[in-house]
């Protein structure tokens, strides 16, 4: 073995190929089957895609680095489940490009934060977390409320996501900016379009408390309120924690 190596280390290209070979096997064995074994991801026929406003909010969540302190992955551990709800299922992040499972909980897990608090609570909390949680060490995101959301290019975002496999329809892509406006402005004609395209259960609300304009705060709150609610497979699951009120 050492004699063989003694000869191998005299030749650059064979040595390079040996490195590539040795370093490829593990990744191939672990990653490739995740695409082919269909039990890897559960099926959830009723799962919906993110609305344009929620998607914009998700992009703000990414932009601000929220994932650095908040996980979105409840583990199959008793204390995790009792604290945060039913453990996360693979299908729940099926449309997440990229996933935001996170690796650190400087703050609590957010996988099922949706509808746990009111919109108003989120707005106050994001504006200055210490107004509602005095011990919090989360940054204050004061600029979200006063920054208008860019919506004109949301169709292109949906289009790009369709290219990587998210089933957005032509109708959704064409109406993306209008739907973003409608979801934050209940009672307007645009709001009906959101319910029509994304389902009656979609939250339509003046998330930041100020209808008329669409701010980054609207988008982020809309996103936080949908977390864990794109599909109800987890709440229908008889496993512990699933059916709790």
């Amino acid at each position, binding site marked *: 073995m050492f004699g063989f190596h003694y000869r191998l280390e005299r030749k650059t290209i064979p040595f390079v190929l040996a490195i590539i070979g040795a370093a490829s096997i593990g990744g191939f064995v672990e990653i490739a089957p995740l695409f082919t074994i269909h039990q890897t991801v559960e099926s959830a026929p009723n799962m919906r895609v993110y609305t344009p406003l929620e998607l914009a909010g998700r*992009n703000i969540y*990414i932009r601000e680095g929220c994932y650095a302190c908040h996980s979105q992955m409840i583990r199959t551990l008793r204390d995790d489940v009792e604290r945060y709800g039913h453990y996360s299922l693979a299908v729940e992040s099926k449309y997440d*490009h990229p996933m935001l499972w996170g690796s650190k909980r400087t703050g609590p897990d957010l996988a099922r934060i949706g509808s746990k608090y009111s919109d108003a609570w989120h707005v106050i909390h994001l504006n200055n977390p*210490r107004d509602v949680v005095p011990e919090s060490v989360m940054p204050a995101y004061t600029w979200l409320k006063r920054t208008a959301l860019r919506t004109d*290019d949301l169709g292109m975002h949906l289009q790009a996501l369709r290219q990587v496999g998210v089933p957005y329809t032509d109708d959704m892509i064409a109406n993306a900016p209008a739907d973003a406006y409608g979801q934050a402005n209940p009672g307007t004609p645009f709001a009906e379009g959101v319910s029509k395209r994304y389902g009656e259960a979609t939250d339509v609300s003046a998330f930041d408390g100020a209808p008329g304009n669409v701010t980054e705060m609207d988008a982020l709150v809309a996103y936080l309120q949908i977390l864990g609610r794109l599909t109800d497979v987890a709440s229908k699951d008889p496993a512990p924690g699933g059916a709790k009120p």
Partner: protein
Amino acid sequence: MAQLTTTERQIALALLVVLAVVGLLMVTAGREDPLGLHGLLVMAAAVLGSFWIMSRYYDPLPTADRLREYYDDPSKFGVVAAMVWVAFGLFIGDWVAWLLVNPDLTFDAAWSSFGRIRPVHTTSVIFGFGGNALIATSFYVMQRTSRARLPDQLSPWFVLLGYNLFCLLAVTGYMLGITQSREYAEPEWYADIWLVAVWIVYFVTYLRTLARRKEPHIYVSNWYYLAFILVVAMLHIVNNLAVPVSLGHAKSYSLFSGVQDAMTEWWYGHNAVAFFLTSGFLGMMYYFMPKRAGRPIFSYRLSIISFWGITFFYIWVGSHHLHYTALPQWVQTLGMTFSVLLLVPSWASAGNALLTLNGAWHKVRDDATLRFMMVAAVFYGLTTFEGSFMAIRPVNSLSHYTDWTIGHVHAGALGWVAMITFGSIYASVPWLWKRDAMHSARLVEIHFWLALAGTVVYIFAMWNSGIVQGLMWRTYNESGTLAYSFVDSLVAMHPYYIARAVGGLLFLIGALVGCYNVYMTIRTARQHEIGPSADMPAAVPVLSPAE
């Protein structure tokens, strides 16, 4: 510059013009997007570079004498860049640490909030400091161990300057809100493509130098540097596969989603630890430690076993970041198993390093530079043990999501990566600038103790906070319900967060002392002309007609 031939000066100028055009296109296409600002940055870099070349275009041409020496100017630049990045990255890191003590230290600005500058810290220290140190030392080491000069003067500069442009795009991007959110791979698609170009030139330069070598065998350091270059390329390309929103948008959407994306991300993430933060730095250690100690490597066979063990085992272990998640259990189990196996080659490397010091322990006592390397090897052994331990599923159920992980990472990053790098820099700066020794041995000694104290304070703080946090989350009271709210655990962290920030501050002060010492060493006039030395390529190559 003085060593660039006319052809090389012309090619450099042409490349910079192309880069300026690319920058202009980015500005035009991305005028409504943060991409436009990055276009301006690219253009500014290209214009500055062109002016610099044009102002020196008619400088005297290099003579053939240059081929009798190794080409060390790029390494010098890389060492200085590494020191600049480490000062910046540690400063941001300590600031981020204080933000967890007092979250309002942000000037109420978007760019300075925790989530944006935390990746500025990680990228600056890992890629800015670590990457520059790796590229600089790899050029230095491969020339010496091959006894051959770099194949040309331009490509090493392309690699180093291009790489630093990538780092700049990365850290400014985060502050502007441009990020993929993939941990340790945050830069967006255009920066990623640029890095691929830089990396290909790096690899080709390496191969061309090896092809010119006068030594029959490729030295072990080069195995590690090669593994670093090759596998990082593989990881980078697969992990960053994404579809941009448009050519005028910085934003892209990753090709994979959910569970497959998580596995790809941590396959990348942990192997960035393996092939960036371990493999490359082992290459550094295998050269600078025996040189400084004046002892040969303890065991050639042990280095073979540990090299192939690390290269083969590491790639499997990424899934230990996803224990108890929605990732299928069989993948988690594979990750855990290989993580435990990995202890064998890791400790073989650490042991090989420490046994190399046999017969030179008196030097370790007297020479802080060698002591940096010795302590680095010890921390390497400790951290790899801790890592294998934390990858075991039940242990991970306690440690995951807590500060224990942060403590573990910093035991590796401060104790191993930074210490071996400082040791190698203190060894190589006098060699590169042809000085007898560093400006002040005493300041190296002070830096050593500050670095060690900072590391120890840091990791003890994080071990404590992590374990306290993990235990509080899973504590039940007598009625069978959770005993503590999340906020209870957060309040309990406060004293440890202060201790951690103080530890980081000590480490930062040490690095600043190091910057001063390196600066003074470079500034000091050359003490004496070096006569004919052994530090030169084996033979003068035959000149090609173009030169």
